[in-house]
């Protein structure tokens, strides 16, 4: 079976991989490249646990074919912490207990980071609607929304 040869840059690092057409970017990240921080909660774009950035756009990696990212930049949760230093969002999520089981957390942090890069001072409604595609069944969202607000404040100052 002939596979597609894909050259991409993941979290700043040039990476090449082979994949079949039906393999999604999420399949490739998790099964071929070992980036298991992106989670598969639904496989249909309804839960956001697989959120990644492709060429600066927030997408569900379960709805992107691996073959599609040839020549693209991909950023995953594994690239959010710069070296050993946690991103302000990650630190605030810890301080404010904005996670319980933690399975949705990588996708939410990737999505929230994308929001704050677009809008450094979002109000509660903007945060809630931006994150509407990231399901969390544990927290009721309260501490997540507050954590994003607090991280935004820290990042502004």
């Amino acid at each position, binding site marked *: 079976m002939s596979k597609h040869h894909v050259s991409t840059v993941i979290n700043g690092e040039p990476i090449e991989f082979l994949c079949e*057409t039906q393999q999604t970017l999420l399949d490739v990240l998790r099964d071929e490249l070992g980036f298991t921080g992106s989670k598969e909660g639904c496989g249909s774009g309804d839960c956001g646990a697989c959120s990644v950035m492709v060429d600066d756009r927030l997408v569900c990696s379960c709805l992107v074919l691996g073959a599609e990212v040839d020549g693209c930049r991909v950023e995953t949760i594994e690239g959010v912490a710069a070296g050993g230093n946690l991103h302000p969002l990650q630190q605030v999520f810890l301080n404010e207990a904005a996670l319980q089981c933690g399975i949705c957390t990588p996708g939410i942090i990737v999505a929230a980071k994308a929001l704050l890069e677009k809008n450094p001072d979002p109000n509660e409604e903007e945060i809630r609607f931006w*994150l509407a595609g990231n399901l969390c069944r544990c927290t009721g969202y309260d501490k997540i929304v507050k954590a994003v607000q607090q991280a935004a404040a820290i990042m502004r100052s």
Partner: protein
Amino acid sequence: MLTYNKPTTVDEAVALLKQPGTRRRVLAGGTDLLVQLRSGRLQAEGIVDIKRIPELQNIREENGGFRIGAAVAGAALGENAALRRMWPGVVEGANLIGSTQIQGRASLGGNLCNGSPAADGVPALIAAGVRCTIAGPGGRREVPVESVVVGPGKTSLAEGEFLVDFYLPAQAAKGGDAYLRFIPRTEMDIAVVGAAVNLVLDASGVCTAARVSLGAVAPRALLVEAAGKALVGTRVDDAALDAMAAAARAACAPINDKRGTIEFRTHVAGVLAKRAAKIALERARSRA
């Protein structure tokens, strides 16, 4: 085995799509296609990714209106201030498709050609009088957007044809449009009812033209001419809005399904048409 091609020109894409015997599917944002392929609802032997064709990816002003590539992602539409100013309803519809993540991928072309009666992007395009460019083995043709979908999952596109772009005409000096949809939650649902209104006022504030389109209340998105007529010649007062809503309800031919009942869809279609018309009216009035 499933093939994958990423043509860079329309002709290349047509050449791939017209090859007899191989069932190839057009991939734009993929937010419907990939889900349907995975669930087995759709079969395909090949995927033709049209996102690498420049003209399918850009938005440009043309004769006072806009030409929008079929594969432009919802997020990109939302970021175009000039488009938002002229056709806020069209952009509202496009931006209501799915989550932020879906917006990063989903296109108006895909939303239309997926053929769902509930497509959020479509009613506002119909109300705006949009025309579509379709390319195929026989060259290019232009058709009104409401003629593309013929039934659930079915389009009028012939073998080897695909959608290239949409042309949004210039909005009238005192024209305004709006789209509203009803879903049980605030996000992430398929429209149970959608209503788009595009109306034009004269200098005295009388409605001179109006197009009303409904989604999810029939096998395909409807252009409800009677509803538009009910507004023309009026100041879009309550009486006119009631008449328009009644016409909208009369045009509904919905089904009971997991998303809504006939009673609910018919009633709410009138409610949303009215609310959308009021927003469109405000937008028309506010234009200098």
